[in-house]
């Protein structure tokens, strides 16, 4: 190749560069007035401590291990957050901004600040607050947008029967995840385990979700049974408090923790449980424990105690175990076989369940006291309540539990057909109201091919209503008529026949202190016609099985028994309690109570034996 020829005047060309402005910036200039970085510059971090929940996802994604979570004892240790905040080592940080893109709350951001010169190496390590490394407010630089987001914000859709199918069917409507769906959903979890603190039973949620992600369902089952012997039940109708605090929920839809739990138990065959769990019962104590009530708390206590080597007998007044699970959850939400899957394993550990035996009637508490070392009471809120309004004593005015039990027994083929009204009026806005309304709607459709169900609640909006949003949406789809913001005045009975219920407008449910104190506008009333009324206004405990002298020693406040942290009833050391009667109606709370009581009972018996 030939080189280009150079002009004779070439050397003179150099002169023109004399007048050109240099592109470089002098050193002293750049220190005093640094050049402003571009708008997307990935500079030093800032972190909004108010927003940050200490989930640690930034530290997990950090490719250079520059982010370490640091504990701060002065931070409030509340549900939904951890008392820790990220610290950043700028000796390692590569300013990639992945931490900003994956931050679950959006609290961690980057500024345009980029200059830090110091002889002190410690100054390169800092804990970002809303001020940057030099405690100056600097404009934000690199910002996460929809495009660069590294979280999976959208939930995997669950297959649910369409409303037309649902309204005439008691077959479970939620179909459960397929393997692909479950793995997809599990891969949205960032493994922060913030949910575990909120879960009353402190289930190892992050662990079992990872097990699903790695498709190791056997380990998943083991992780479930560490804290919860009723996974098939809780995987279907838990109150899923875990999902309300899920860190993904800050910017997207929380991980479907409940459905994932169900996925594990649905996909491990029952007959392999013993082999997989391989739980060894170490004979520890030669003691017997009686449990009153085979609901979630009772079963949970029985499971944990039997693993510790105790001899367990559960007394159940109904003809099958389950308590609230037996009649509370309608079949379309909780089919019997799911519950049986759980209870069969508990039985296989040697737990004896004596049904059709009501303590206080068929056997007295004193008799139990003689036969057993310790008694665990988990009798639940088993009495339905009615409002003391005019006409409430009419035979077609039901409380929620009676009608739910009648309906479920009929659906099972174990009971007579309940009265199926032309038009049902349900008073209340909780999940129980939804269960009643939707179950009866199905029966109406099956019987008459049409339905008429009215649900009236004091709460004026759907947001205020305590029922789950899913329940309301699905109920609407099935044809339930909702009338929020109405309080009942009286049940109208004409010639002994139920005509309907008169309602008045509710203007406020809670007072300024947030207490339940409804206010009405008496001038606005509405009459809802119906030939059956169900009041779902809470449930109450029944303590009649406890002899008076024992009741006198105990403290019962607002229907709840006071116990210590291990469920030991104050004043009666050999009596333990848990479930609804201690913490109010909630399945997972019952499971947790059973676990804690098992520990308490073990501790109590061990100490007794030593003495």
């Amino acid at each position, binding site marked *: *190749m030939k*080189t*280009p*020829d*150079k002009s004779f005047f*070439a050397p003179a*060309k150099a002169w023109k560069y004399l007048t050109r402005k240099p*592109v*470089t910036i002098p050193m002293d200039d750049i220190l005093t007035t640094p050049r402003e*970085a*571009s*708008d*997307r*510059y*990935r500079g030093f971090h800032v972190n909004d401590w108010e927003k940050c929940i200490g989930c640690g*996802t930034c530290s*997990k*994604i*950090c*490719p*250079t291990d520059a982010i370490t979570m640091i504990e701060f004892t002065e931070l409030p240790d509340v549900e939904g957050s951890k008392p820790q905040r990220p610290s950043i080592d700028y000796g390692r940080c*590569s*300013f*990639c*901004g*992945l931490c900003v*893109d*994956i931050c679950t709350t959006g609290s961690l951001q980057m500024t345009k600040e980029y200059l830090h010169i110091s002889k002190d190496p410690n100054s390169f390590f800092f804990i970002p607050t809303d001020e940057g490394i030099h405690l100056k407010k600097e404009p934000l*630089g*690199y910002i996460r*947008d929809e*495009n*660069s987001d*590294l*979280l*999976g914000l959208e939930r995997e859709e669950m297959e649910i029967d369409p409303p037309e199918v649902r309204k005439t069917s008691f077959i479970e409507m939620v179909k459960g995840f397929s393997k692909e769906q479950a793995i*997809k959903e*599990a*891969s*949205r*979890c*960032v*493994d922060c385990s913030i949910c575990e603190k909120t879960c009353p039973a402190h289930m190892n949620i992050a662990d079992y979700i990872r097990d699903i*992600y790695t498709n190791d369902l056997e380990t998943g089952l083991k992780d479930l049974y560490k804290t919860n012997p009723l996974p098939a039940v809780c995987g279907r109708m838990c109150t899923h408090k875990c999902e309300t605090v899920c860190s*993904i929920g800050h910017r997207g839809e929380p991980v479907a923790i409940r459905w994932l739990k169900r996925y594990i138990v649905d996909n491990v065959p029952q007959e392999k449980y013993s082999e997989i769990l391989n739980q060894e019962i170490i004979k520890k104590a030669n003691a017997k424990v009686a449990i009153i009530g085979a609901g979630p708390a009772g079963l949970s206590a029985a499971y944990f105690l039997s693993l510790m080597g105790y001899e367990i007998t559960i007394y159940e007044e109904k003809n099958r175990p389950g308590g609230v699970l037996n009649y509370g959850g309608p079949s379309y939400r909780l089919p019997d076989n799911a519950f049986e899957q759980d209870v069969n394993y508990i039985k296989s550990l040697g737990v004896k369940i004596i049904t059709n035996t009501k303590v206080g009637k068929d056997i007295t508490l004193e008799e139990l006291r003689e036969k057993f070392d310790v008694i665990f009471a988990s009798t639940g809120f088993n009495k339905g309540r009615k409002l003391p309004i005019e006409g409430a004593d009419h035979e077609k005015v039901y409380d929620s539990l009676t009608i739910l039990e009648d309906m479920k027994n009929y659906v099972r083929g174990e009971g007579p057909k309940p009265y199926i009204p032309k038009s049902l009026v349900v008073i209340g806005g909780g999940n129980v109201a939804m269960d009643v309304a939707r179950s009866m709607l199905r029966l109406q459709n099956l019987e008459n091919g049409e339905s008429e169900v009215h649900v009236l609640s004091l709460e004026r909006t759907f947001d205020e209503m305590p029922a789950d949003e899913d329940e309301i949406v699905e109920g609407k789809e099935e044809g339930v008529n909702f009338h929020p913001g109405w309080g009942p005045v009286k049940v109208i009975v004409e010639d002994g026949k139920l005509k309907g219920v008169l309602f008045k407008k509710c203007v406020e449910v809670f007072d300024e202190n947030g207490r339940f104190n409804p206010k009405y506008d008496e001038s606005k009333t509405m009459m809802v016609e119906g030939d059956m009324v169900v009041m779902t206004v809470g449930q109450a405990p029944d303590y009649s099985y406890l002899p008076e002298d024992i009741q006198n020693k105990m403290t019962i406040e607002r229907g709840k028994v006071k116990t210590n942290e291990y469920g030991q009833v104050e004043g009666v050391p050999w009596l333990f309690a848990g479930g609804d009667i201690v913490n109010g109606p909630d399945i997972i709370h019952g499971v947790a109570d059973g676990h804690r009581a098992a520990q308490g009972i073990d501790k109590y018996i061990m100490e007794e034996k030593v003495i």
Partner: protein
Amino acid sequence: MKELKLYLGPNHPGMHGNYSVHMYVDGDTIVRARPMPGMLHRGFEKLMERRYWMNNLALIPRICVPEPDINEMVYSMAIEELSGVEVPERAHWIRMIILELARIANHLMSLGGIGGPVGLYTGPNWGLADRDLILDIFEEITGARIYHMYIVPGGVRKDISEETIEKIQSFLDYLERRLPEYEDLILKNELVIRRTKDKILLPAEVVWELGVTGIGMRSAVGKAYDIRKVDPYARYDQVDFYVPTANYSDGYTRLYFKYLETYQSIKIIRQVIEKMPKKGEVWNKISVGNALRWRVPKGQVYTHVECTRGEYGYYLVSDGEDKPYRVAVRGASYPQGLLGVEKYMPGTRIDDAALWMDTMGVCAPEIDR
């Protein structure tokens, strides 16, 4: 015959990165040359097996310091091929802008950089100053100047704005006016001509023997072997550009090629700006869930791109998990930088050694990885 051992590097102004050549000289002729890699070895390939797919993004640009974007591109291409994810149309074009700007930046640096070994220190200063203008543009697009971590599997991390595109256009206009001055300063300079013309030859047999690619191969064998042409990636098949070739490869030809290719890159970027869709998605995620749990389906793949030094490739194996099972990097200057030094540097003069490294396009970090 007396033999003297001299060290070129690891710290030497004429050396490319922390790399060393032990020269055994007789008079001023190199008799034997031993390449001494290892000083830059950070175990990238092994480290990548321990990091999530997305995390590697912060690691791989460092495999080739002066031209980091090719790593992101070739890594992303490999993952895209395995996971079958479709890259949004706009992202393809944005990637081409980034890659060509990076090519220009690298060519400017090495074109000016020839001033180092020949003693023409205006060259490096000019090269770096003009490269800085490109870094400004990079900063605007990606948020970083050198290691952009911008091209990601499935697209690019951020969209590019109209203002930035205008800025790129005005930079290209500037550069086009400016390039003839480079020709004047460097290519027509007696210093450069005397030191590189008919020296540091790369015969065609050596190209075939070692597997040299890129400018070295194209200038020696007269074949337009450019991955952008022979196996087009992104949207290189939709732009018009010319690949210079020659049949005589001395230092000067290879230097001149860099100058010619810079013009071609300008031409490509102009076409990209004209042809790219004006808006649209720029990133389709490779997997479901969050980046900590992204998975790439089982399989193996080799992807390659054309970097300033030649064919740059990644061989990547995935076992279907959240981290790569194995990654092997084909550094473009591996053959000439390692075996070439040992076999073909002897016979040249001491003062040619630095020029040898420069015009052969040796990039030490990609040899060490």
